[in-house]
């Protein structure tokens, strides 16, 4: 089909030098299209309409024709139809409904280019209905092993759009295990898109998508430190700068990994990036790409915040950047330094550049000036607030119009926040009012009044300052309002000073009356009424004003004048005095200024990882995030089963920890009914998968090696060794199937007081029936009762090509506090001497419990030995009792542990008593041993 008509039309329009001619030509063409549309060449006419749209003309017809093009078999017509709907239709348009069927057809099509057109259209126009009806199809295209890379990456972004717009209709949590492996895809384009998608998902479901952290770090390592990179993705000598930036940003939604190996790896990468950029090349594009990565790296370093060495390097780099000749670099340097200011405890590295930053307020470029202002606002504290505020005030009259209102607000906030003496506060705000004039919002003088009313010591001073302000040659409206209010309330405090007599005060105000706007006149009348009450000697002139304005044209003014006139002219002053009672101070409340400055974020956007405004503002942002994450987790957990609800209820009950312990055992039993192929995860009360105990857990608590977990697919065997506060676990993962396990990953998660570090990572692939080791080091830092756990994820079946659900297992490691106990032998006679010494200060924990099995001495003895305690045979007068001694070693201390277990054969009961030299350990150890005794089988 020839598009000649289109070319002629465009050329015609180009000849139209004035708007009217263009309009005429457009109208003619529209009439022509309307007449011809139904018959032929729909594509050409739609194309013409699109051109008119781009020129800014509103297109009110032809949408239906565009929609009909979509179902054409001809690719060029289909493509034009899709282009038209992405440009012309909105998600609420009625016609969108008609498109959905065509979209579904094209998503299902064997032709990948048709898939792409549909995906692109959904990504641009996707509304709720599309999300509800098409999300499954889109997700299928994303995870299907049959999909080509160029389809996958479009599907990822399409899903992202639907998730952002309508997160409630997508089962994003369920999809985690299928979406996360896409980050391992060899195609850089696919990974880039997947990283965008996962960044959005991880913000809402940080726990469920936590696996993205090791994956992102692995990819970064590949990009930054290895050289086998596809040359296509090298942009001006830099490997995939876009992906690097994306990954660095993704990591900013998580804290620094607690796994030692992973942590070291990311720190090495960050070091390496900073080292690589020692010299910035001349080529603009090359330098741009390097800087893009560098700035994101610095942001991540600031976000981690715990590496003083890296932070110092980052601060030094930023110092260099803000002095750069390149405006872009200066701009970003200032911006990133504002981020740094929100994270540093010691502001010295920033304050060193204070002069330079202040000078940035005079930069030639308004964009840079704005960032300079943000940084000054963020870095301000008690020590430098005076210098910064002084400079801001000095610059204010010269500042751009657009910037001034924000500056005023920020000056006011800083002054209030960091004022150490009230006089400085009053001086500054009054100066602000008189300098900035009408750019000052009402909130600022309202706030000043609030503070003056609330501070008695300030009132006299304020009255003096406003009076001298009124006498300045230029007095903006807001300054006049403050003057009227403050003198009306506190003018009497200075009435005896020379030049401040009631008459002087009245004259100073009234000189401005005739030129003041109406609202201010009204205020002034009120002030005069207060004057009459305070200073009877100036009743006359005030009364004259009231009398005069009784006839003012404006109703508000007239009414006040009349009322005040009559109040003053009454026989007694009683009413006047009641009306003019001194204002009570305002209740203390948060400054309305800050809330005005706080910005709202739109729902479709990524969350900010930091905000302008220094440390406080950033702490607040973090706590908000934590709240919303909790809310999301709760929302995600609505599908939890009764069993987990019961577990949640028990776990949150204030009773002794024992109930939770028993419950965990129940869960353990429940698990055996589950289909092992389903994986060993149970959703916890907060929506996150809660680690469970493997079948071999209890045995391994006393044994050095054995099988921890087993199902149809994998077997996890554990071998462990402990020495002092350190432990080493080798976890053997065996593939029990004839398929390759793909995207295999294990991460270990420590708990408070137990640090867990990956020493040797598991391979990403496990061949059929093969076994691979994974090594973890543990360090005990203190008392703990919940053991660390591992998270195992993998996909099944490379050969069958099926899309079986990826598996995710959260399994507790068989580690207890007792593993860190070393036996200690002691003379039998010493035992009870020590025992008595430890009887004070809650160092004892005792319980009585009934045994499941009749008492047999041998198993109990073996059990107690396996906990690491040395058993003393002849110490206890009762030979049936057991006493044991051990030293529990942590990184910081050695804790002596004494245990006494008294069985009662006839009642089938035990009494257990544990005394330790550190009260934190007694109860936990007692629980543990009690639990273990209960596990003894007859």
């Amino acid at each position, binding site marked *: 089909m020839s598009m000649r008509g289109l*070319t002629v039309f*465009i050329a015609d329009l*180009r000849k139209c030098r004035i708007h009217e001619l263009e309009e005429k030509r457009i109208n003619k063409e529209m009439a022509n299209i309307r007449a011809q549309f139904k018959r032929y060449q729909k594509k050409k006419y739609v*194309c013409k309409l*699109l051109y008119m749209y*781009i*020129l*800014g*003309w*509103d*297109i009110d017809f032809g949408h239906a024709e565009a929609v009909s093009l979509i179902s054409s*078999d*001809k*690719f*060029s017509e289909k*493509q034009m139809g899709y282009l038209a709907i992405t*440009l012309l239709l909105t*998600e*609420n348009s009625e016609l969108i409904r008609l498109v959905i069927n065509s979209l579904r057809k094209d998503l299902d099509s064997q*032709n990948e*280019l048709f898939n792409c057109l549909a995906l692109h259209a959904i*990504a*641009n126009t996707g509304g709720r209905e599309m999300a509800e009806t098409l999300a499954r199809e889109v997700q299928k295209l994303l995870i299907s092993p049959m999909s080509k890379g*160029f389809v996958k990456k*479009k599907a990822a*972004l*399409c899903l*992202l759009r639907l998730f952002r717009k309508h997160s409630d209709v997508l089962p994003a949590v369920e999809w985690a295990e299928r979406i996360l492996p896409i980050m391992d895809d060899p195609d850089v*384009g696919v990974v*880039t*898109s997947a990283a*965008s998608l996962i960044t959005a998902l991880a913000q809402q479901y940080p726990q469920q998508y936590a696996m993205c952290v090791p994956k992102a770090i692995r990819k970064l390592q590949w990009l930054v430190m290895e050289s086998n990179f596809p040359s*296509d*993705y090298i*942009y001006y000598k830099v490997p995939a*700068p*876009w992906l690097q930036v994306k990954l660095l*940003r993704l990591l900013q939604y998580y804290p620094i990994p607690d796994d030692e190996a992973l942590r070291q790896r990311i720190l090495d990468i960050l070091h390496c990036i900073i080292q690589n950029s020692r010299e910035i090349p001349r080529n603009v*594009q090359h330098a*741009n*790409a390097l*800087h*893009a990565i560098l700035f*994101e790296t610095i942001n991540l370093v600031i976000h981690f915040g715990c590496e003083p060495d890296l932070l110092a390097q980052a601060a030094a780099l930023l110092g260099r950047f803000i002095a750069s000749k390149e*405006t*872009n670099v200066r*701009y*970003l340097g200032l911006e990133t330094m504002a981020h740094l200011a929100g994270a540093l405890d010691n502001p010295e590295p920033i304050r060193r550049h204070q002069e330079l930053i202040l000078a940035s307020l005079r930069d*030639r*470029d308004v*964009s840079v000036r*704005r960032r300079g202002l943000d940084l000054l606002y963020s870095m301000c504290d008690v020590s430098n607030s005076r210098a910064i505020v002084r400079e801001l005030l000095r610059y204010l009259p010269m500042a751009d119009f657009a910037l001034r209102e924000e500056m005023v607000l920020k000056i006011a906030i800083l002054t209030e926040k960091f004022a150490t003496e009230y006089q400085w506060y009053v001086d500054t705000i009054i100066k602000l009012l008189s300098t900035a004039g009408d750019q000052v919002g009402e909130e600022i003088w309202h706030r000043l009044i609030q503070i003056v009313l609330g501070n008695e010591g300030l009132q006299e001073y304020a009255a003096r300052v406003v009076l001298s302000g009124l006498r300045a040659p230029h007095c903006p409206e807001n300054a006049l309002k403050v003057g009227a209010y403050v003198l009306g309330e506190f003018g009497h405090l200075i009435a005896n000073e020379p030049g401040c007599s009631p008459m002087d005060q009245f004259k100073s105000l009234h000189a401005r009356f005739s030129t003041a706007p109406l609202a201010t006149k009204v205020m002034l009348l009120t002030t005069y009424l207060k004057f009459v009450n305070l200073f009877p000697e100036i009743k006359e002139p005030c009364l004259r004003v009231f009398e005069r304005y009784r006839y003012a044209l404006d109703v508000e003014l007239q009414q006040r004048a009349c009322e005040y006139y009559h109040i003053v002219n009454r026989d007694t002053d009683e009413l006047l005095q009641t009306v003019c009672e001194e204002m009570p101070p305002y209740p203390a409340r948060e400054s309305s200024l800050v809330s005005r400055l706080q*910005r*709202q*974020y*739109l729902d*479709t*956007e*990524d969350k*900010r990882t930091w905000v302008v405004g220094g440390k406080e503002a950033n702490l607040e942002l973090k706590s908000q995030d934590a709240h919303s994450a909790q809310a999301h987790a709760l929302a995600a957990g609505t599908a939890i089963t009764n069993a987990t609800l019961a577990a949640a209820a028990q776990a949150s009950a204030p009773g002794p920890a024992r109930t939770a312990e028993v419950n965990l055992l129940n869960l353990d039993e429940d698990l055996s009914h589950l289909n092992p192929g389903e994986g060993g995860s149970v959703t916890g009360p907060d929506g996150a998968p809660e680690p469970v105990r493997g079948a071999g857990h209890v045995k391994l608590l006393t044994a050095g090696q054995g099988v921890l977990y087993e199902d149809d697919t994998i077997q996890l065997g554990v071998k462990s060794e402990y020495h002092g506060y350190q432990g080493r676990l080798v976890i053997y993962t065996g593939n029990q199937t004839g398929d390759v396990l793909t995207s295999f990953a294990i991460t270990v998660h420590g708990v408070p007081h137990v640090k867990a570090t990956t020493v040797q990572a598991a391979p990403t692939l496990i061949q059929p029936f093969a076994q691979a080791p994974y090594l973890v080091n543990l360090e005990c830092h203190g008392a703990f009762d919940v053991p660390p756990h591992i998270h195992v994820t993998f996909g099944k079946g490379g050969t069958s090509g099926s899309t079986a659900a990826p598996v995710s297992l959260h399994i507790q490691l068989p580690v207890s506090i007792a593993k860190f106990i070393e036996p200690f032998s002691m003379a039998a006679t010493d035992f009870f001497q020590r025992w008595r010494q430890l009887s004070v200060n809650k160092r004892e924990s005792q319980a009585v419990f009934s045994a499941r099995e009749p008492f047999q001495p041998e198993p109990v003895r073996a059990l107690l030995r396996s906990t690491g305690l040395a058993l003393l045979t002849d110490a206890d007068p009762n030979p049936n009792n057991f006493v044991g001694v051990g030293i529990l070693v942590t990184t910081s201390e050695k804790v002596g542990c004494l245990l006494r277990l008294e069985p009662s054969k006839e009642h089938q009961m035990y009494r257990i008593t544990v005394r330790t030299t550190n009260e934190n350990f007694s109860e936990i150890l007692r629980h543990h041993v009690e639990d273990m005794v209960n596990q003894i089988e007859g």
Partner: protein
Amino acid sequence: MIKSVLIFNTQGKPRLTKFYQQIDVEVEQAILKEIHSLVARRPAQACNFLEGSKLLGGADTRIIYRNYATLYFVFVVDSSESELGILDLIQVFVETLDRCFENVCELDLIFHFEEVNYILSEIITGGMVLETNINEIIQAIRDSNRLMKANSANGGADDRSRWV
């Protein structure tokens, strides 16, 4: 997220208007005018970033632009995008156009505006970056042109075969 991609010439005549948010045509034109007036008066040595546009959402919105001869390429983005990354992306877009049109000039963008849109759709989807590899982008365009040619083999020559 990228909120909008605009190309206009030094007089402010639009050559490409693409919005990834749902906005009325009048507002779109107002945004275009606003951005043109902001960008056109900036000196060459000023940075490529600007605060705004107010019409396209909050104070967190940034205008990132590059000037090539008579044309301005403008991306409006939110705070989650790397400013320099977007500058790279503009460069990728322009280099791709240059390869597709062989020394691209304003006239190419006028007479082949739909192709410019197709190229953009291989770089950005739904406001997110889809592909940054120029070869990959051009390959995608070629694939769809090949299909179009095959389709229209019996319906006469398609004038888009020029740069396949």
